[in-house]
């Protein structure tokens, strides 16, 4: 296999990056970890005329807690850096665990959270848990910086609302009331598999009552999706096996899976039911934020 020809740039600043992106328009692509884009180029799905490398930007490689903001993850942080981050393991273990279930060990050492979000695959593993934790992204373009909810970034399969000249610089998990969370990925094998169904759950549990809930599904719609009916159903209710099972059934009804070579829509829908129930149970039992 081979890659089409392109011009390679290594800008020295983010401003220069956005400038180059603006100049080339849709003919340029950002190169972060490269694990998605190189594959697409080899498969003939992409043939950018310019690749703009973010290689120089060490400042995008940090994971730190910023008071007033929350946990800030630079866009160039790799998935394994998320897995092994002591800060994340302590504050939001669910995010580290979600990253651990992605792809393979080698891809996790190279692929980045910014790249993963920009690629916008409906079965991606990090977006659901980040959305459940109310994450926002900071996006920078030639016109300046803006912040948006991660949930609003995805507009369709493999498409985001980012403008041509914009790049993600950081993902922020804000301080929040949610005190437990988890992500369950259901794949057809234990490594190197796309999610057939992914369920992320973040809850505010107090005295066995679910005060607030966010349930986000992956791989069963065009984008990661919130389940409003399920969340509304759970709010204010006392935890019981029946409650969680019912929540699963409602989530299954809200999901919009398709049939593909990995699974049928019918099976996926039932797996949403099963794994929503199990994710809720797991979040409550094991997913306490410290």
């Amino acid at each position: 296999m081979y890659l089409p020809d392109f011009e390679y740039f290594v800008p020295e600043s983010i401003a220069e990056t956005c400038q180059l992106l603006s100049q080339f328009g849709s003919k340029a692509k950002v190169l972060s970890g490269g694990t998605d884009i190189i594959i697409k180029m080899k498969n003939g799905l992409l043939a950018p005329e310019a690749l703009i490398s973010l290689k120089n930007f060490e400042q995008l490689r940090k994971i730190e807690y910023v008071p007033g903001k929350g946990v800030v993850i630079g866009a160039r942080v790799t998935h394994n850096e998320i897995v092994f981050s002591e800060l994340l393991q302590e504050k939001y273990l669910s995010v580290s665990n979600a990253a651990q279930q992605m792809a393979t060990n080698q891809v996790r050492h190279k692929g980045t959270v910014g790249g993963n979000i920009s690629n916008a695959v409906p079965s991606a593993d990090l977006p659901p848990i980040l959305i459940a934790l109310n994450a926002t992204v900071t996006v920078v373009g030639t016109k300046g910086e803006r912040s948006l909810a991660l949930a609003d970034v995805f507009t369709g399969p493999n498409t985001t609302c980012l403008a041509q000249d914009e790049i993600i610089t950081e993902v922020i998990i804000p301080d929040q009331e949610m005190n437990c969370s988890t992500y369950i990925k259901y794949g057809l094998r234990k490594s190197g598999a796309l999610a057939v169904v992914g369920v992320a759950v973040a809850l505010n549990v107090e005295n066995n009552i679910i005060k607030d809930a966010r349930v986000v599904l992956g791989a069963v719609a065009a984008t990661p999706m919130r389940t409003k009916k399920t969340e509304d159903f759970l709010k204010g209710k006392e935890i019981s096996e029946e409650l969680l099972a019912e929540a699963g059934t409602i989530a299954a009804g809200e999901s919009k899976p398709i049939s593909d070579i990995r699974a049928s829509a019918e099976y996926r829908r039932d797996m949403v039911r099963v794994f929503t129930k199990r994710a809720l149970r797991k979040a409550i039992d094991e997913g306490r934020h410290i």
Partner: protein
Amino acid sequence: MSNVIIDRAGNKRYLVNITVNGDSYEKIVKGNSLLVNFLRDELDLTGTKRGCELGDCGSCTVLMGGKPINSCLMLAVEADGLEFTTIEGVASTNEIDPIQDMFIEYGAMQCGYCTPGMVLSAKALLTKNPKPTELEVRTAISGNLCRCTGYVNIVKAILAASGQEIPAE
């Protein structure tokens, strides 16, 4: 990027400086050159293999700053200024590394094609985590596909190389 030349066809070529197994190399590469081909064709380090070219099999695994990555998914230009270890760099003298020795002792390779990638994944693991659990070993090699061994003896060899007892069958 500095050090850019234009070739006869009007395409840009780039001068890169890549350190492999402790040796520094300066070569001119096309933008679309992949690291795996650079290693195999420019440097004649054919221990790094091509099995699938899409990052699924791990036979192209090299260590980038000690971390295992798929060299088939990395551009040679992106490797500029970085340090890599290939299988040829694991044993730096005539003595082989304990991991390699245990691989032979436990019959952890059959056709041998996945072996360079496996050894590097194991090396990266034991450097960071000298006494891994069996689950940690399996996770470390979960991106290296082997069609011959069923991974059974590979896991044993890595545990043996870490000086730990191998769980009874």
